[in-house]
């Protein structure tokens, strides 16, 4: 017979786990709401900068600015955006798998690429496997401001300009909806696919188009990275919320199963006791 007290213990421990996962789910859902707001507040800036970059790039074709020029690729950089902590379902693992597969497919030796890691999980994963992690950020707040990521964005752009690497790809989870996000790859540098903007205002450049590109392009690349990190954060919170919701649901199922088992066992014990008493009484007659 199943031990009654043992089942009771399991029910109680599952219940307290459920309390934790439920709390984490609620925390994540409120963080997700904030993250969505941040991402929304960022849209006007991004749109504006895209528009101006497009207009200028269209106006000054063949400016020869190094950030616009493809050069022979000797080294590739991967900027991988993940999270600091786990318990977020497949949030980190799906990105890491994607990057790992790409690296295996594209590169023969570790000299051909470098990794820039955002998030502790990402950094640890690549360091452990002996990849060359040249920059990392950990401990980003849940609602990062531009100042928080300026360092890594500036480094990423700076290392492209000084020739540490010749192209930069960005891997992050794009937030589709609260229950869905997808791994997204974006080529950040060189900026070869700037869409010429539709507005045909031909600008005066003060002092010159080249001087403006000098300021504008790094700012643009940095803002692309910031946008991806905001997007990634929103996905992280949604992934964690979903994971915790699943955990809570599973805990509920488990508790229901165990309660059934517990009641059956208790009933069996009572039945047996009655049978024994009745049997004992019958023996006395």
């Amino acid at each position, binding site marked *: 017979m199943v031990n009654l007290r043992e089942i009771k213990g399991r029910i109680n421990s599952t219940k307290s786990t459920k309390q934790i996962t439920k709390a984490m789910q609620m925390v994540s859902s409120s963080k997700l709401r904030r993250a969505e707001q941040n991402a929304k*507040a*960022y849209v006007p800036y991004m749109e504006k900068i895209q528009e101006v970059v497009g207009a200028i790039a269209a106006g000054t074709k063949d400016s020869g600015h190094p950030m616009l020029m493809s050069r022979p690729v000797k080294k590739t950089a991967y900027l991988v955006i993940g999270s600091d902590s786990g318990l977020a379902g497949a949030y980190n693992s799906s990105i890491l798998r994607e990057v790992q597969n790409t690296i295996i497919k594209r590169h023969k030796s570790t000299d051909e690429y470098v990794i820039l890691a955002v998030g502790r999980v990402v950094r640890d994963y690549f360091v452990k496997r002996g990849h060359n992690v040249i920059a990392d950020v950990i401990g980003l707040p849940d609602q990062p401001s531009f100042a928080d990521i300026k360092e890594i964005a500036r480094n990423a752009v700076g290392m492209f300009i000084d020739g540490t690497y010749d192209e930069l790809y960005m891997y992050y989870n794009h937030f589709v909806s609260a229950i869905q996000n997808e791994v997204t790859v974006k080529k950040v540098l060189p900026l070869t696919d700037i869409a010429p903007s539709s507005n045909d205002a031909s600008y005066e450049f003060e002092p010159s188009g080249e001087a403006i590109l000098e300021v504008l392009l790094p*700012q643009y690349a940095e803002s692309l990275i910031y946008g991806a990190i905001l997007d990634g954060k929103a996905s992280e919170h949604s992934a964690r919320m979903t994971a915790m919701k699943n955990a809570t649901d599973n805990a509920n199922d488990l508790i229901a199963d165990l309660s059934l088992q517990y009641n059956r066992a208790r009933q069996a014990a009572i039945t047996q006791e009655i049978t024994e008493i009745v049997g004992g009484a019958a023996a006395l007659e």
Partner: protein
Amino acid sequence: MKTVKVNIVTPDGSVYDSEVTMVIAKTTSGEIGVLAGHIPMVAPLAIGAVKLKKADGTTEVAAVSGGFIEVRPEKISILAPSAEVAASIDIARAKEALARAEGRLQKKQDDIDFKRAELSLNRAMNRINVHEGNI
């Protein structure tokens, strides 16, 4: 006097959005004043104050750390990595940053750190100046 819409946008959201008669900004090649109906223009900004003259004669000031200004006849946009209007400047933080930058500048380090410290010194000074209104 004719007014023009001005919008100061940072990656953390919009910090200023209003109708003004004239914008005076410090570009890398000198100060410019822009009135309504200006021809389309783009110019990179230096770390400095942006003065916004309103129709009722008052002037508002914002501290802007770099970025650029985009002028169109009916709208002026300023896009900067960071920007604050005078009232919302965190003066304690700016003073702290100033002290830190000064300390670093005295310890003559290599070029990159020196430049960085210089930039953050400029930003801090700019914020303090804008906050205290001596521009």
